[in-house]
């Protein structure tokens, strides 16, 4: 009797397993949209599992399970109904054009679905929850939430969004399944590094590094007497350089130097690119210090922190306490995290202006940070110095500009400069347009306040001067667009919209042809 039962159970288990495997096979052979949407659904269901461990909060689980099921259903439908198209058909398109649409749609989908839990859970109004979702996935950290009165499940969800947004969806999908076209997506999402000679291994290495640092961060926080829940949330948000906190006063609420140091280290790690981190872990510190980006980052941190500290000392506060504040402020700003010890906007104008500049610089290329990225600034400065040098030298002198990457020295050629210039110019134009819109919708604020807040959104920094908390609907929309553009590095959004328009309406922008006549 017992044996029969066991065998029957075994058979059922085998059947279920086979069905699951069949479905998994179908999905992994299906198109990439399906995989991405299912992944997003799975991620959103995680807080529901977390609610089991939080006392009396299981009633919030459905708020996450419903959107998760919706996402998974859309994913399965998309994966099975639309089969992978023949890749050669679009072979002539540039790689970024092939990759842009899936990346953009995955991010927009995550933002849309990710706002539902706040609405279903009755925590926020629809527009506010959309804002919170954008701010979460793009690792910005601007918030409209009333953190002190929010259930813990939702606090966990906010930090978890940032943790996943820091890694990127394509990277996670790459780790699980591998297809031919995935490399286009990988580049499109903004991961310039190849650590391993194989894409899947690269994704796995990055994932392991990231989780390793998370574990280390949690342990360090626990040593400095943070509660486990706070440690988990803060470690997730600091590592993804995002900046949602479980306290209204952010890190300043703990008033503990140990916690501030741990946070600074995690933010620095988050804003360093993964190739450098893997070198560092292999103990090749000499080589890490030779990388131009790392040098630039260290010099910049030291220089800006000193300047701010000196300026504060001149106006009467003791040097060491202002240096301490300044170092934290500089790291939290250029790493685009946005944790605060106090309200930075109340600092003197000189210091606030320096922080404002740092928001544009941002973190390392291929890290979780936003902004224009240190590498680009580094290249632009070198090009600028080279330009001056060229004018001082004899006209036939050949000047070779170089910068050092993890892989070794690399030449700064005209292509690289024009690419970098194009990005910088678009970044600044978007900044100008966004600021103008914010000033238009808020006639009663001063100019710098608007500039500061939009730079914070575009750089996915998240330091606020209070404008966001009381903002009207159009301002929120402008900031949301800024955050999405900032996280996906601008071009991909425009190319994605173009690709979508071509798909839907068959619109084609033909490059203007120049006819040369004799």
């Amino acid at each position, binding site marked *: 009797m017992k044996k029969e039962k066991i065998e029957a159970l075994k058979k059922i288990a085998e059947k279920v397993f086979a069905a699951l495997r069949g479905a998994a096979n179908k999905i992994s052979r299906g198109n990439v949209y399906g995989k991405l949407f299912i992944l997003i659904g799975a991620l959103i269901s995680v807080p529901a599992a977390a609610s089991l461990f939080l006392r009396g909060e299981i009633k919030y689980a459905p708020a996450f399970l419903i959107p998760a099921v919706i996402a998974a259903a859309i994913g399965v439908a998309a994966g099975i109904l639309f089969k992978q198209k023949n890749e050669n058909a679009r072979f002539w398109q540039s*790689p970024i054009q092939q990759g842009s649409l899936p990346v953009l749609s995955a991010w927009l989908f995550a933002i849309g679905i990710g706002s539902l839990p706040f609405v279903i859970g009755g925590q926020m109004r629809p527009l506010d929850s959309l804002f919170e979702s954008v701010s979460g996935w793009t690792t910005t950290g601007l918030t409209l939430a009333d953190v002190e009165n929010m259930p813990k499940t939702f606090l966990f969800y906010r930090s978890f969004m940032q943790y996943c947004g820091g890694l990127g969806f394509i990277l996670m999908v790459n780790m699980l399944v591998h297809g031919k076209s*995935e*490399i286009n997506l*990988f580049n499109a999402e903004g991961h310039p590094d190849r650590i391993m*000679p*194989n894409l899947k291994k690269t994704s796995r290495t990055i994932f392991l590094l990231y989780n390793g640092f998370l574990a280390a961060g949690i342990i360090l926080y626990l040593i400095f007497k943070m509660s486990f829940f706070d440690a988990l949330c803060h470690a997730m948000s600091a590592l993804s350089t995002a900046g949602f906190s479980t306290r209204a006063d952010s890190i300043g609420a703990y008033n503990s130097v140990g916690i501030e140091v741990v946070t600074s280290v995690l933010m620095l790690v988050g804003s360093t690119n993964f190739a450098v981190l893997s070198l560092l872990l292999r103990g090749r510190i000499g080589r890490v210090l030779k990388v131009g980006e790392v040098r630039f980052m260290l010099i910049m941190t030291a220089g800006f922190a000193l300047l701010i500290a000196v300026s504060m000392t001149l106006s009467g506060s003791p040097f060491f306490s202002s240096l301490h504040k300044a170092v934290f402020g500089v790291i939290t700003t250029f790493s685009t995290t946005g944790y605060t010890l106090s309200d930075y906007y109340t600092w003197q104008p000189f210091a606030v202006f320096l922080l404002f500049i740092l928001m544009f610089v941002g973190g390392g290329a291929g890290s979780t940070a936003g902004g224009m990225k240190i590498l680009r600034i580094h290249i632009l400065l070198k090009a600028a110095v080279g330009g001056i040098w060229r004018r001082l030298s004899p006209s036939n002198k050949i000047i070779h500009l170089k910068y050092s990457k993890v*892989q070794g020295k690399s030449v700064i050629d005209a292509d690289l400069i024009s690419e970098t210039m194009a990005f910088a110019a678009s970044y600044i134009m978007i900044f100008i347009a966004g600021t103008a819109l914010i000033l238009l919708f808020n006639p009663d604020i001063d100019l710098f306040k608007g500039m500061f807040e939009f730079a914070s959104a575009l750089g996915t920094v998240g330091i606020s001067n209070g404008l966001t908390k009381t903002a009207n609907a159009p301002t929120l929309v402008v900031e949301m667009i800024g955050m999405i553009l900032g996280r996906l590095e601008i071009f991909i959004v425009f190319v994605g919209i173009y690709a979508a328009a071509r798909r839907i309406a068959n619109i084609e922008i033909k490059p203007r042809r120049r006819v040369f006549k004799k």
Partner: protein
Amino acid sequence: MKKFRSKDKDDGYTIIIGCGRLGAGLANNLSDDGRSVLVVDKDNDAFKRLSPSFGGLTLNGDATEIRVLSEANVEKASSVVAVTNSDNTNLLVAQLVKDRYGAKNVVARLYEPERACICIDAGIKTICPSVLSANAINELLN
């Protein structure tokens, strides 16, 4: 699960030296199969031949230099393929890799079949386009 594991275990690490038509084509095929590949070429523009879906690494440098070979982690490679357009380079690199790093599987392309005698004792496998074509044409004629 088994399927995943077996794939991960024996995927090896192939280094291809020379990113010409043959090298790039080979690299693309291996990368599409999900294997680990690294391509070395001294001309940076040669990497444009790789398909956009190539997921491996590229290294710009002269593979006859020890510095470049050790940067490519030759000691970890399961196979090394030398397919530059110069027989001498291919032979030199193949011998270097075999003697100095003890790579298991070394393949060199030789335009001149008579040079293959150098490789037989050293345990280097050779491929000769002219011999292959001659055989193929023979078969077509019969």
